[in-house]
């Protein structure tokens, strides 16, 4: 029964992974990646690690991939065109590497498993939430906290980068529906000029900022 489930979900994971790489449409790739994450979560359940499975779906399939899909939708990324491959010389190297990987796997399957090795500990409760929680907050407290600080730093860093300039003063009244325009945004010949206004249309912003001719991103690329 377990072997059957393993074959089902492992097959699904591999199939989705191949589809993810092969798809030309970025949204199809994203959907395939979600498929990979969910099949992996199912595999974790069969390995008696329900907590990891649930967290895998919540964090990867539910949070990170939603953002990816969101960005693809927002930017309306077009289907990738079929271009002649640059970096063609990498293909034989990749094939060689894949061969090495398969050889390693075969080695482990045929030689390592047959060796007596260490006796398997009783793992019935290792995957449960309570044991993971007590482990994280006692034995592994320091690594856990260090990781959380690292993630916090990433969040703060992302916010700092995103807010870089172009901001209105606190006193500026922004009506809902307004958009913030900076001089840099409207006139590509003045990079770094971040004086900004909030208004409802591009023309109005250009007038207020004194940019005589609108030279947006569409024209000069």
């Amino acid at each position, binding site marked *: 029964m377990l072997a059957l489930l393993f074959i089902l979900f492992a097959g699904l994971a591999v199939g989705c992974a191949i589809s993810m790489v092969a798809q030309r449409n970025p949204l199809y790739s994203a959907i395939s990646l*979600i498929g990979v994450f969910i099949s992996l979560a199912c595999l974790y359940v069969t390995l008696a690690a329900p*907590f990891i499975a649930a*967290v895998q*779906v*919540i964090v990867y399939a*539910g949070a990170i991939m*939603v953002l990816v*899909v*969101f960005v693809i939708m927002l930017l309306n990324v077009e289907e990738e065109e079929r271009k002649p491959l640059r970096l063609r010389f990498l293909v034989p190297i990749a094939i060689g590497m894949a061969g090495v990987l398969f050889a390693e796997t075969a080695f482990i399957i045929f030689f390592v498993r047959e060796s007596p090795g260490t006796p398997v500990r009783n793992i019935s409760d290792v995957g449960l939430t309570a044991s993971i929680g007590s482990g994280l907050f006692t034995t592994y407290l320091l690594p856990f906290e260090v990781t959380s600080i690292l993630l916090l730093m990433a969040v703060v860093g992302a916010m700092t980068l995103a807010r870089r300039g172009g901001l209105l003063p606190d006193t500026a009244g922004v009506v809902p529906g307004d958009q913030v325009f900076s001089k840099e945004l409207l006139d590509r010949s003045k990079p770094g000029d971040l004086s900004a206004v909030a208004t409802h249309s591009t023309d109005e912003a250009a007038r207020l900022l004194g940019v005589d001719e609108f030279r947006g991103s569409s024209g000069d690329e």
Partner: protein
Amino acid sequence: MEDLKHLILLMIGILIAFTVVMTMVAYTVLAERRILGFIQGRLGPNRVGPGGFLQPIADLLKFIFKEDIVPDKSTRFVFFLAPTVATTAALMTIVVYPFGPAVHIPFITEPVQLVIARFDVALLYVLSITSVGVYGIALAGWSSNNKYSLMGGLRASAQMISYELALGLGLIGVILQSGTLDLYSIVEQQAGYFGFSGWNVFWVQPLGFIIYMIAAIAETNRVPFDLPEAETELVAGFHTEYSAMKFALFFMAEYVNMFTVSMLATTLFLGGWNGPFVHQLPWLGVFYFLGKVVMFLFFYIWLRGTLPRFRFDQLMDFGWKFLVPAAIINIVLTATMQWSGAFDYVGKFIRTQTGWGG
């Protein structure tokens, strides 16, 4: 043999739960139309069957026989996938809710717990399935190749991501207090005197309950948080291009979601199947459970008849600047009381003074 028996029992359980939930969902739609009619001073559908009783069946038949229109330039595969994902994700959470206590069933010797799947991480499972449900709406908006749909899909995903945070944080208080993620145990812990006094909503979780309810209404895209399908701005939002059965699937997903968040609220805050005389008559628990869920559904309908819609910036401000901090305060409060033993002290005090047990 034992495995096969287990599997058959599971299948029967799923079938019964599915039938009960779907029937109740169908009649929630009818109840909504009738109650809204009452609130707005009109009658509502009352022609099909006595008092409109057969209206859901007529609606279903109509949905099945309508023409299924697929827009020319839609992304066909995703267009088909989206309603499937929405409905599947909505229905998948039903399996973890305890509908009732252990009861005796004919032909089976040992008592059977009225829950389909009882496992360690039930609550996390619910949260993970809910988070996958966003894709149904987001993909529907994207694949329709329609500006209104796209805007609706974007709004819905932004809203659901934001409120999922408050929803999850609002539940942490209950988890801290009960020390488990298994829904059946959480319900058992809320037994108390006369099936009432142990409910989490009385035991220092009223704030958590309110946060959860508000976030849950936003998660299900209902009034006053129904911006993804705001008629006045977006025609019908993410399902503008959907017709016939595919539209019905979205419609169903919304109501099943309402039903499941109500079940979760009942399970975690209102004592699940606990109530007077459940110990003597275990089957009564099922009725208490469904009764509490129906109460929540009525609350949803009442809200819809009462409140206007938020503006999008108000929605985001409310979610991030009010609900999330409030949820964090709730966590700190609960953790402090748990750590200082205040719960135990209060429980002991009440037990000695009144004879009520927590």
